[in-house]
């Protein structure tokens, strides 16, 4: 992947490890991020598929796969509760921090953002490289934690103390891993902000930026501002575990019949505040880049400008701001009084408005378009209603009165998975299908892509729709065996349906995996640098983009989505084309030299 054009810029050839391993090229780093994240998404998905066996058939030996695990975790092929909790905690952690965010921000952000703003690289290429490798170390720590005594973290991805503080060693590894991952995100976010502000091509004003760049820009601010509190909290929990502090440990705890030997005086709720102060903006870190991708692809495939570009931009900026003041709606049941809960209910209702506007804008963009149902477009079209379901089901959770019943039930699981799985992950798939030809010079197979799309769409809903009803019946989340409760046994059939859908969803991903690797070598070669006939700058580079990206510094003359302009010779006018529709290529300036070459 990302083969460099051979020396046509007069660059000296870099040795292999500098070119592909410890590279400072944003495209190589983007691909490193994407490939690593895709691996983790698959891994996290496998953890979940194992959990789904226990959920569907509690206490029954897992066929074949069960025999591969040690007698500690799966005696006679039957999963024990400790192992189930490990899988649950690590599924959440891996999917969010090692899968979706690295793919959406580290992968797409790194690869596409500099191209879309006409920059030769990120502002700080070495920082970029450091960001990836710190992330990599965090991932390795997380994976390795499965092999420490008593296994990986098992206190949920939220790691609430005191449970997390008294948990076995795996939790310490989880915290070290999180410190690494957060550090990586911070390094990345600084880079994105500076790059966007400083390195836009000539003529590319803020309101000419593609929507994707805006989304990444806002995301970077969220990462920059929200992650430090969690990093601090992570270090504090680490200290509680290994240095005998009591930030989160109140006095008078009695664990397993014995008074716990801690100094006490801490507050378990402090952790929740710090955690959700990150983790709610984190939801928007997951969703904004996805919206950015959808914006690009919808405009391209409807062949008309995005509806309400400025409204969309204002909406995501507002969304980003609001995401910082809704966090305590995760904590309505912690004994919160009326004043605070009123504030957070109100902000939660308010934050739904920009989301509605964004969805409406996407839908209105379809009106009057000339829609091409390409594979990336299919995924984006599915994103819109799926995200709508995710968003709407947030309403009952955002009001304390209805949350009184639905809090911490499967309804919550269904709700946020609709946002992240058929929402964000569909958009990420769309992004992969869309930018694959730019990165490799080959198209992904259309038939396999459509097969992948339709099977995924059906089974995604098969996984998550039943959860809404399971939650409505009152079943708590994170239960190893819901049949212990009468109302859980009642809806066990739905849970089994979720499980079967999940396994079939797993099979459906084989279409994608095969397509991905097959197309890399054998896919149809692109006939031009701009196979989708898109307007944004990333399509103005050679394919794949060489080190330094642009042959000539592009000069931007217009907004990002000039499709079907009346009177124009073609149905799209690239951003760098001059008014007569011709691509304006200044011959005088040589290509800029990327920063790592000096």
């Amino acid at each position: 992947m990302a083969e460099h054009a051979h020396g046509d810029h007069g660059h000296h050839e870099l040795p292999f490890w500098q070119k592909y391993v410890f590279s400072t090229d944003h495209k190589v780093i983007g691909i490193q991020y994407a490939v690593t994240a895709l691996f983790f998404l698959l891994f996290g998905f496998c953890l979940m598929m194992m959990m789904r066996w226990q959920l569907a058939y509690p206490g029954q030996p897992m066929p074949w796969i069960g025999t591969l695990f040690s007698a500690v975790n799966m005696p006679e092929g039957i999963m024990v509760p400790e192992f189930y909790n490990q899988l649950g905690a690590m599924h959440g952690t891996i999917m969010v921090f090692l899968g979706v965010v690295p793919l959406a921000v580290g992968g797409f952000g790194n690869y596409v953002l500099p191209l879309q703003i006409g920059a030769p690289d990120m502002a700080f290429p070495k920082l970029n490289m450091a960001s990836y490798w710190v992330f990599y170390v965090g991932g390795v720590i997380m994976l390795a934690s499965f092999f420490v005594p008593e296994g990986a973290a098992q206190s949920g991805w939220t790691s609430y103390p005191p449970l997390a503080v008294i948990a076995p060693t795996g939790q310490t590894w989880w915290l070290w891993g999180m410190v690494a991952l957060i550090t990586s995100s911070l390094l990345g976010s600084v880079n994105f902000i500076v790059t966007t502000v400083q390195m836009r091509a000539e003529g590319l004003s803020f309101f000419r930026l593609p929507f994707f760049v805006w989304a990444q820009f806002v995301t970077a601010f969220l990462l920059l501002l929200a992650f430090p509190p969690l990093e601090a909290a992570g270090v504090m929990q680490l200290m509680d575990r290994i240095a005998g502090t009591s930030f989160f440990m109140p006095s008078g705890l009695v664990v397993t019949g014995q008074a716990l030997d801690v100094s006490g005086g801490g507050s378990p709720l402090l952790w929740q505040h710090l955690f959700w102060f990150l983790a709610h903006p984190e939801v928007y870190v997951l969703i904004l880049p996805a919206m950015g991708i959808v914006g690009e692809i919808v405009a391209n495939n409807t062949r008309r400008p995005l509806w309400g570009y400025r409204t969309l931009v204002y909406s995501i900026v507002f969304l980003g701001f609001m995401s910082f003041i809704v966090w305590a709606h995760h904590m309505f049941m912690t004994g919160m009084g009326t004043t605070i809960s009123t504030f957070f209910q109100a902000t939660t209702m308010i934050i739904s408005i920009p989301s509605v506007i964004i969805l409406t804008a996407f839908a209105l963009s379809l009106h009057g378009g000339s829609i091409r149902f390409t594979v990336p477009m299919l995924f984006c079209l599915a994103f819109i209603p799926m995200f709508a379901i995710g968003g709407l089901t947030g309403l009952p959770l955002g009001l304390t009165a209805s949350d009184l019943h639905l809090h911490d039930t499967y309804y919550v699981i269904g709700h946020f998975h609709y946002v992240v799985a058929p929402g964000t992950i569909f958009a990420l798939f769309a992004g992969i299908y869309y930018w694959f030809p730019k990165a490799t010079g080959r198209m992904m197979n259309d038939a396999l892509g459509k097969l992948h799309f339709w099977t995924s769409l059906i089974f995604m809903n098969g996984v998550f729709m039943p959860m809404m009803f399971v939650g409505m019946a009152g079943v708590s989340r994170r239960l190893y065996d819901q049949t212990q409760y009468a109302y859980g046994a009642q809806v066990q059939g739905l849970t089994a349906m979720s499980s079967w859908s999940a396994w079939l969803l797993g099979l459906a991903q084989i279409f994608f995996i095969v397509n991905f690797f097959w197309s890399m070598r054998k896919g149809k070669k692109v006939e031009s640098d701009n196979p989708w006939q898109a307007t944004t700058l990333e399509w103005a580079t050679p394919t794949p983009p060489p080190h330094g990206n642009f042959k000539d510094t592009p000069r931007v003359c217009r907004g990002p989505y000039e499709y079907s302009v009346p009177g124009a010779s073609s149905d799209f006018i690239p951003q760098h084309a001059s008014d007569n529709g011709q691509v304006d290529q200044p011959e005088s300036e040589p290509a800029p030299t990327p920063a790592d070459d000096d």
Partner: protein
Amino acid sequence: MIRRGSIAAIIALSFACFASGEAFAGATVSGTIKLEFPGGKKPGRKKIQMAADPVCAGKHPDAPARSEVVVVDDDGGLHNVFVYVKKGLEGEKFDVPTEPAVLDQQGCIYKPHVMGVRAGQPITVLNSDGTLHNIHPKPENSDEINKAMPKFMKKITISFANPEVMVPVKCDVHPWMQSYIGVMEHPFFSVSGEGGKFEIAGLPAGAYTIEAWHESKRLGTMTEEISVADGESKTLDFLFKIKPKK
């Protein structure tokens, strides 16, 4: 009815005999452990709230299960006292039996309530109840163990690496379930059973400190100095008195 404590004592004794391999030659220390009744009245045992888990309650259809913290006979014989050689065997090495000791969870009660094992000796933990238990010993000198035993899991094996008197064992699902395991470096220990009787056999000649341990803080521990010659049998009785509160 044979009391659990005496079974434990027999098990412990048989280990003692096999392990030392010279039982015939050694000395025997035996005796009776009694409790002085508070106010001259035999203390009663609290009922256990087995209704907490219908499976547990179903295992005690006739009479309610009662607390095993202080089990005492009408004549004052105190059960579940762990008697062991505390001092006098330093530096001696004894083979560790490979045969596992057995701790059963039956009717949501640990059987035995108090037991002795050797450091490194395997302990088979049984779940005879068909409900979830978790076996959660909290040793200070060895690694903590906390393993769920869902109803399908009938048996697991655990062990403690280092000696400790006593390791508390709990089931967190049924919080009344508590037992104690004495983890020893040598085979000379016993648990008092019916009538408060205990016996430590096969002890090499020498001078020893013998400690009797009871789980209630208000009974605590008692120690005696004793010296024995080869083949000698000595009697050692303990009378526990209830200490005033605080």
